[in-house]
């Protein structure tokens, strides 16, 4: 079992969710984050004082998947989140050891 974490542009969330849905991913968890990376930040101005703000709004998508689904999930996200511009984001793969569905106590494969 793996945990996939994707950091994407916020306006791509609907696309990514729909694409994952089509490959039968039934669950995922999303959160608002701010990213710092190659994509350059922006200037903010408050009463004449200028600030270079490095952080950019991003969305983090977390998905627990079985090992065999990892490649498909990754390529699906990659495609759906792609714009070709700097700051499209990253996909990280982490090992995971188990999952439990609270409602039923089902474990691992059955819990997803």
């Amino acid at each position, binding site marked *: 079992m793996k945990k996939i974490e994707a950091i994407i*542009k916020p*306006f791509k969330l609907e696309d990514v969710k729909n694409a994952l849905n089509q490959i039968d991913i039934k669950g995922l968890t999303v959160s608002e984050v*701010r990213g710092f990376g190659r994509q350059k930040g*922006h200037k*903010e*101005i408050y009463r004449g004082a200028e600030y270079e703000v490095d952080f950019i709004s991003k969305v983090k998508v977390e998905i627990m998947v079985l090992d065999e689904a990892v490649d498909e999930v990754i390529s699906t996200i990659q495609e759906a989140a792609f714009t070709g511009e700097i700051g499209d984001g990253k996909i990280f793969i982490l090992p995971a050891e188990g999952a439990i569905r609270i409602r039923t106590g089902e474990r691992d494969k059955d819990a997803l």
Partner: protein
Amino acid sequence: MVNTGDTAFMLISAALVMFMIPGLALFYAGMVRSKNVLDTMMQSFFAIAIVTIIWVLIGYTLAFGPDKWGLIGGLKWFGLNGVGAAPSEYAETIPGLLFMIYQGMFAMITPALITGAFAERMKFSAFVVFTALWSLIVYSPIAHWVWGGGWIGKMGALDFAGGTVVHISSGAAALAAALVIGRRRGYKVEIMHPHNIPMTMLGAGILWFGWFGFNAGSSLGSGSLAGLAFVVTHLSAAAAMIGWVTAEWWKSGKPTALGAASGAVAGLVAATPAAGFIGPISAIGLGFVAGAVCFFAVSLKWRLGYDDSLDVVGVHLVGGTLGALATGLLATKAVNSLGDNGAFFGNPALFGAQAISVVATIAYAFVITVILLKVIDAIMGLRVSGEDEKTGLDLSQHSEAGYALHE
């Protein structure tokens, strides 16, 4: 001669109309995505600034100066020359300067209303140029036609507080703007939730409050007529809230808070041309119909495919037209002897005059707005880049963020 009671009421009414503009800023800003909240608010605020200067320098005299051919006012009061403590011919119990600024508040809010149509995608610089020119070329002439001694007023059409001058003109311009500037990126694909509906409701509350200055103030003095206009305005808004919410409850299964706020505004719009001419029970009927009709009108944009971001057409063009035509039906000298009777009170001619005034205003505002926007587009570009639109206008146009990270 200046009367202290009339002047007191008009001073506060002018302040109330001015307060509607920050109210409108909130009303609109709550409905956009958070990345565009400041740009949306600033368009309303800056409309105050731009139009104020234009109005005192030249707009006022174009609208209310001595009539030329029924079409435009002369330059007699250019730069407020001769406008001072003495009452003008338009309002004989309040200072001339006060009449000027009271009318100026109407001139300011009208282009601010249009901004809802092109919200979330227009360049700020293009907005500035558009607003300045629109105020001069569209607002002042129409105000002159209706209130300044021009052909619409002479024809006998009634517009108590700006159904044609304010709402139809801005609503028609909004339709033009939505068509010329095109849809927002992601329209119909992404869900574009209002980012803060309580903000919109507060805006609606401020608008309602200020509208008493707008409509009751349009009697240009304190007294029975102001009382009537006040009551008609309030009843129409309340009934329209019920009309809109009932329609959506029936149609979508839920009464919504945004619907209640929108319905109230629709009712206020519809009451605007009618406020000093119809009776209270008519006002309830007008309001209820306006609420329900505007509810259905806003969904037209989905079918017709244009993207009027914040439904200026569905609320102001439709609501204003409804109110102007209803005035032609429901007006009665029984409540205002200086008004007229409408078709339901034996005078179908009034309805004709109202219809003509509506059509003329729509046509003029629509056509000139299209031309104006096309010219501006050609010269400086109307629309932000796709990247800027995705980033949001607050960062891209203003280098600001509405809300900071919690600390």
